[in-house]
């Protein structure tokens, strides 16, 4: 049923005279991805896999995939996984986690999936304090379908369905999911990070670890938003996409922890 390969073939293992200084996480499948050049899903996947390894939970982890570019995220992790309908990942994750209380469950969703069609399912799962971790990729467009307006699209941003740029009145403003989630009593951890620089990537890994930690400690819903680049649908080079994150997105989507019950 599953074609995910196990990581690090023997051919790549160090010989006797070599010392291993860098390796792929065991939770990450060793195979090429379908993502575009410069896409940040690859970084996000790797960070999640590293966290699953470090927490030593991969053998009891279940991934609930979404619909969009990350629909096939299950191909890149060596954990049990299932598909959810568009937007319903947090509801599906609720069902899996309730039915299997010893498992570690996470969703991996884009902005269209989580903040548009699945807003109700996401907010209510968070509000119930479901013991799941939701990873939210915000790249301000619908990627898989070709760059249409997302709920997170910036004011003035041109997309295939906002040819004149997004207008606040009539098309709405960029939804700030982390702030929305942090306002819910059931949320134990909420942080917005970005994947545009080494410093931000390191912070993102720490945030992901915390968002799993609250699940493992039974504190409530864990949420991490990752500001990510989509060079293809932004019609930019990967370098320009990184600059856009720091110059245009972060001012609208401020980084940082907005809720953390770990230290309480």
């Amino acid at each position: 049923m599953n074609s995910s390969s196990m990581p690090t073939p023997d051919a790549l293992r160090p010989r006797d005279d070599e010392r291993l200084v860098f390796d792929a996480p065991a939770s990450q499948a060793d195979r090429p991805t379908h993502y575009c050049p410069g896409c940040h899903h690859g970084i996000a996947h790797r960070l999640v896999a590293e966290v699953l390894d470090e927490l030593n939970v991969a053998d009891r982890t279940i991934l609930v995939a979404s619909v969009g570019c990350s629909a096939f995220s299950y191909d890149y992790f060596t954990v049990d996984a299932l598909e959810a309908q568009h937007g319903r990942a947090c509801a599906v994750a609720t069902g899996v986690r309730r039915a299997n209380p010893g498992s570690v469950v996470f969703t991996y969703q884009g902005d269209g999936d989580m903040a548009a069609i699945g807003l109700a399912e996401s907010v209510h799962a968070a509000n119930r304090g479901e013991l799941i971790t939701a990873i939210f990729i915000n790249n301000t467009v619908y990627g898989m379908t070709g760059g249409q307006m997302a709920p997170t699209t910036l004011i003035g941003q041109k997309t295939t369905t906002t040819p004149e740029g997004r207008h606040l009145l009539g098309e709405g403003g960029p939804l700030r999911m982390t702030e929305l989630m942090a306002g819910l009593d059931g949320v134990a951890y909420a942080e917005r990070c970005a994947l545009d620089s080494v410093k931000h990537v390191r912070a993102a890994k720490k945030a992901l670890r915390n968002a799993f930690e609250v699940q493992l400690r039974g504190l409530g819903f864990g949420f991490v938003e990752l500001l990510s680049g989509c060079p293809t649908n932004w019609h930019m080079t990967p370098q320009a996409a990184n600059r856009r994150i720091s110059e245009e997105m972060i001012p609208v989507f401020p980084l940082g922890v907005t809720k953390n019950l770990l230290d309480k």
Partner: protein
Amino acid sequence: MSDTVARTLIKGNEAVAFGAVDAGCRCYFGYPITPQNEIPETMSRLLPAVSGHYVQAESEVAAASMLLGACAAGVPSMTSSSGCGISLMQEALSYMNGSMLPAVLVNMARGGPGLGDIGPSQGDYFQAVKGGGHGDHRNIVLAPATAQECYDFMFRAFALAFTYANPVMVLGDAIVGQIKEPVRRTPPADALSPAQLEALAAPWRVEGRGKRGPGAAPRLIKSVYLAEGALAARNRLLQDKYEAMRAEARSLSYNVDDADLVVVAYGSIARAVRSTLRALREQGVAVGLFRPVTLYPFPDEALRALAAARPGRRFLVIEQNLGQMVEDVRLALFGAAGCGAEVLWHGLMPGLLANAQMLEEPVRMALAGKEIRS
């Protein structure tokens, strides 16, 4: 017949909940809607006592999605709703068919279309037996007529769902759900134990790969098949399964041997028809009842056997809608295999309460070959 087993006086909806929990159901996800509220209310009481989970979802969309997740974990789980709520569940229902998951859904149908009313109706027949959602999918559909059957059919629903890894819908209506009758809380003879259900799910459920020992390959449950030919292969697999499910067709017949007219009716309407026919029998009128118990697979072979046993006898479909099951009856009896039997139809409008007296005239007229449509 002596009956020493204690019986409890409960509503059909409560019988559904007791039946489900006794059959091994451990997760319930739902959203309030009349006329089925006793199901979630009873579940919210019963499930915590057996270390199960009751979740009141934010919508029927979410409830059915939670059901998908719990079914993927291989745990006997269910939802229930009515009318517009069942419409909202069709998305997940299609995915659960495509992903081959053993979901159990109860529809205590109300009058439609739209918001309709909260009275009884059989207007959801097409939605239940023809799929309802997108793509080629089939739900096994069981149609209880009594509170006892509400209890018993939940065991059957879970057994069928896990045997075929396919959604099963229990289709009642406001009457079936609200009627209060004595119910024996003993598992039917053909029930599968919770351990048997678990064994059926063990080969495919997602559970965390560590449960299968070190080095176990990860599992994936999905309905998407993009590679060329992959979806065709998946649909062929589903087609073979749907074909195998045909062996589960069930029906009941009453006084059909010498009947010149066989009335075809299911659920609460079959009960009203039975009273009508009993009164007519006492007057010497040769009428019988054929009651489909599974609406999908439709018991067409049993129906054809009835036609062949007494060529020339007529069939009258009585249902509480604008004409839905009559299409399956006509398909079953069409052509030489169906002996060219004449099929008449009488419809009751959704929302009305049927009684034995109001059905006497349409039955008498049908004996003479005349159809009173509604």
